[in-house]
């Protein structure tokens, strides 16, 4: 496969950045998207050029490090797929592919396609935890959890914090990420004591970071590689309103 890439190049946080066009030849359809970029980067290094910086780690779709907006869609048009798990067979020979970083004020570009997602860490720090008494671990069955709740909590807990929801949201909102963390803990008995204070602290931190508000467009859940459902945001809304009513 021969491809034309239009890639966002930005040498550092203070650079204004620009789209740069590259030709990539002899791409195997079995390559992952990141492997295709590796091939381009090897060539760029040999030519004495600066390789394209992008985040990646596990390359098996579970760490949440990789992520770029491919042809206007976070992680590309393949549903429920991280960029590392996206394969070149989904593209046509001769295709023109635009690649941009996540765009959000709370995710400043570090270099090229790498953004700083520390804002997510601070949202987690604000309340994405449960306080448990220290001591020996309790028996696994000592606290009963309904199957439905366990399933829904697990669905929410599969969030890998990649930031695609923010990237796709027309408002640059982090609601799906925050809602996934809130729902994951809200549905379990261990999360009950801090349930309302958690919702308030995490939503306030989300606002303080400069993320936008949710307008229920559903763009986030459509691009989420883990398919976090939109009703987690209803759970966030419910907990937040209850926290404020108290």
């Amino acid at each position, binding site marked *: 496969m021969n491809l034309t890439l*239009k890639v*966002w190049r930005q040498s550092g946080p203070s650079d204004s950045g620009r*789209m740069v066009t590259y030709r990539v030849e002899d791409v195997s359809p079995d390559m992952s998207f990141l492997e295709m970029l590796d091939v381009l980067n090897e060539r760029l290094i040999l030519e004495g050029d600066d390789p394209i910086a992008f985040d990646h780690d596990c390359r098996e779709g579970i760490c949440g490090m990789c992520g770029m*907006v491919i*042809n*206007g*869609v976070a992680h590309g*048009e393949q549903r429920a797929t991280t960029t590392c798990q996206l394969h070149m067979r989904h593209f046509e020979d001769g295709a023109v592919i*635009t690649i*941009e970083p996540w*765009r*959000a*004020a*709370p995710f400043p570009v570090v270099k090229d396609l790498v953004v700083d997602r*520390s*804002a997510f*860490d*601070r949202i987690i*720090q604000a309340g994405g935890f449960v306080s448990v008494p*220290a*001591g*020996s*671990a309790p028996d696994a069955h000592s606290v009963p959890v309904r199957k439905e709740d366990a399933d829904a909590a697990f669905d929410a807990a599969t969030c890998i914090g990649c930031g695609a929801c923010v990237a*796709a949201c*027309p*408002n*640059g*909102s982090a609601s799906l990420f925050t809602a996934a963390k809130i729902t994951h803990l809200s549905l379990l008995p261990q999360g009950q004591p801090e349930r309302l204070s958690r919702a308030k602290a995490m*939503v*306030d*931190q*989300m*606002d*303080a*970071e*400069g*993320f*936008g*508000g*949710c*307008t*229920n*467009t*559903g*763009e986030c*859940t*459509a691009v989420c590689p883990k398919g976090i*459902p*939109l*009703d987690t*945001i*209803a*759970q*966030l*809304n*419910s*907990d*937040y*309103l209850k926290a*404020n009513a108290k």
Partner: protein
Amino acid sequence: MTWTDHRWIPSVEDVTATIERGAATAPVSSPKSAPPAKRPSSRKPGGFLASSNGKKAVMAVTGVVMVLFLVGHMLGNLKIFLGRDSFNEYAHALRTLLEPLAPYRTLLTIVEVVLAASVVLHLWAAISLARRARKARPVKYVTKKSQASGYTTHIMRFGGVTILLFLVWHLLDLTFGVVNPKGSGSAPADRMIAGFDASRWWVTLIYVVAVVMVGLHLRHGIWSAFQTLGWANRTRYRALKGAAALVSAVLVIGFLAPPLAITFGAVK
């Protein structure tokens, strides 16, 4: 565990257990020694109304108030099909409701105040959320493709502005009679029938566009309000979205029936 002369001789199981326990009970440094990372923004979390979720709640509640009003308004409009007198009586009844317990126009004034407040608050929430959204994405995408189904979500702000402009025209036309051929002192039914006369077809056209815009606005707005107030979940989505589409369709048909009937001469 085995204790000999106060000396602990660990077995393999003990070591494993100790490591696990050690991890769970490892000393946690006090918050004072490790201050939490400073937020990059100087903005302090304000009150409920300063939060994005608080604004959304204001948007949802005021939206619900306005939808309930629209249902009543639509039912009232349909009285024109029962004749001019029936319509005028209805308009008069709105003003004399609760009389003699309360003065003339009490209930109507209350409704007007609540509606005006709803419009202002809805607008305020929309503007401040839109400004927040614009700030959240200072650099736009070169290419951006929508993945969510439904175009209605993308015309909410545009639709809202259109509806607001229409509202100004609508009040000048049928409430104050300023731009109505019959003027302000005329009977409500006369204003309505003269306003949508076939010679003023362009007025009817404005109403058609505006009412369809209201319908599209509500198709997203109604279920969205339930989501914002935390009453939606995955089993209710289908029902909520269905109800939103149904209410929107009924309102569009109910609101367009009188002006179209007048313009095409079915109601005289």
